[in-house]
């Protein structure tokens, strides 16, 4: 019975469900985990990369020593697969179909720049989340189209509400969080976060909580920059302006070593080797 209502995204089933939207959410729960923790001093976000493999040519991917830094270019250090800069004051971690995600990132960046153009200020975080969610919702209602197979975590800062963390799903719903998680194992990661989250965390504690939960959630015991992207949103100590930082692989490995969660090359060998896409889905195209 249900199958009759599957092929159209915009038709309710007799039980009042939108199957295509639910399937999109299902696709995301197989994708690499993204989790983030909010603190008074800033936000930390970690994302699991699933596209690994010996033959993948990453020589042109971000993360070289020449890129990034401590100032305005701090966001250029790494990322590019799971974590993206959407605007000066907003970073997003994505889980789902990579190609859909790329298109959403482009839309978000354009929307943010349009706001900057008309109001001469960085777009408030929730407003950008709303822009994206309005579009995502559209694809669950208008005919002939497929919903975006992407969930996002947004972390950002604006002068009105300060640091904020939001999550959105393919249906176009969004919500604000102190610590949250999307992607595979999100329910177990969420309960770990709920257990260990404390009010008044420092940024350092948020970073370590983020990575500790990540290490328990991911299949392998030792973390490393090959399977992980990491970013923080803080305020610049002098200018008090938002500072987005996506860690370079070397910086992330350093952080992981400090937290004794891995970060050494040797632990990697064999961990993901031969699995190509890795993870349960095993399909590079949809599993980031």
């Amino acid at each position, binding site marked *: 019975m249900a199958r009759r209502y599957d092929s159209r995204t915009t038709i309710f089933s007799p039980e009042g469900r939108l199957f295509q939207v639910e399937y999109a959410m299902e696709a995301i729960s197989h994708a690499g985990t993204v989790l983030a923790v909010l603190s008074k001093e800033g936000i930390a976000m970690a994302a699991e990369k699933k596209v690994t493999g010996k033959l993948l040519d990453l020589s042109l991917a971000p993360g070289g020593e020449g890129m990034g830094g401590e100032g305005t270019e701090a966001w250029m250090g790494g990322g590019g697969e799971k974590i993206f800069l959407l605007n000066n004051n907003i970073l997003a971690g994505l889980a789902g179909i990579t190609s859909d995600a790329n298109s959403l990132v482009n839309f978000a960046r354009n929307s943010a720049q349009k706001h900057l*153009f*008309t*109001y*001469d*200020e960085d777009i*408030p975080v*929730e*407003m950008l989340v709303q822009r994206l969610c309005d579009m995502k919702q559209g694809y669950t209602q208008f005919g002939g189209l497929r919903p975006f197979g992407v969930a996002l975590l947004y972390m950002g800062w604006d*002068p*009105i*509400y300060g640091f904020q963390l939001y999550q959105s799903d393919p249906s176009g719903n969004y919500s604000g969080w102190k610590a949250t998680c999307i992607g595979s194992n999100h329910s177990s990661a969420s309960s770990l976060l709920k257990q260990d989250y404390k009010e008044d965390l420092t940024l350092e504690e948020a970073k370590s909580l983020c990575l500790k939960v990540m290490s328990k959630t991911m299949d392998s015991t030792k973390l490393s920059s090959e399977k992980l992207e990491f970013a923080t949103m803080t305020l610049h100590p002098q200018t008090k302006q938002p500072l987005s930082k996506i860690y370079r692989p070397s910086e992330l490995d350093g952080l992981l070593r400090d937290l004794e969660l891995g970060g050494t090359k040797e632990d990697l060998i064999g961990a993901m080797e031969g699995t190509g896409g890795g993870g349960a889905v095993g399909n590079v195209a949809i599993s980031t």
Partner: protein
Amino acid sequence: MECSFGLTGKDYVLLCSDMSAGRSIIRMKSDENKIKTLGPHLAMAYGGEPGDTNNFAEYVERNMRLYHIRNHYPLLPESASAWIRRTLAESIRSRKPYSVNLLLAGYDTTTTKPHLYWIDYLGTKAVVPYAAHGMGVYVSLSTMDKWWFNDMNKREGVDVLKKCIDEVKKRITVHFNFNCILIDKDGIHHIDIESEDPITELESQQPKETLVDAPNPPLDIGNVGVTA
């Protein structure tokens, strides 16, 4: 035949506009309010082509209100000035441009700083400590050049404003009535500029009594995040 000026002080901004409405040498009205409140801490004094002025002022007012309702917080003065400027800059290159000059005054509740913007019908924007439009330009700018200084308290600000008005009355043959407001952390207050000591009057009254009606969203959603 128009005259408006504004000035910033330590933690407030004053805005003053004449109240005449008419055509060429004829005055048809001497109690026209040409200051529009755009939000809890934002107002503008406007002038220019009759018809364009009110239409544009209402267009701005309603867009500011729409933003407030949609986002639960008002546009900050800086962003409001950018939006108004963009609207005029787009208008000037359209088929029928608005011919409106304005002074935008606001108090930024997030930084507790006063703001004053000089904006003309081309979309030119200047961020200034004091400014004037209309006939006032020729006498009040030099008056403010001489008497204005940084971080004036309210009484000192009103004194400078009075000097400007005196100068206008002395040097300009046209007679004007003036309408004046003060914006500070509590909101927008009406000031009786003709009285001897408007600030004492202002302070002796309950804040609520002097407040000018500002367009607030209809629902009481609290002032989350926008209080100082």
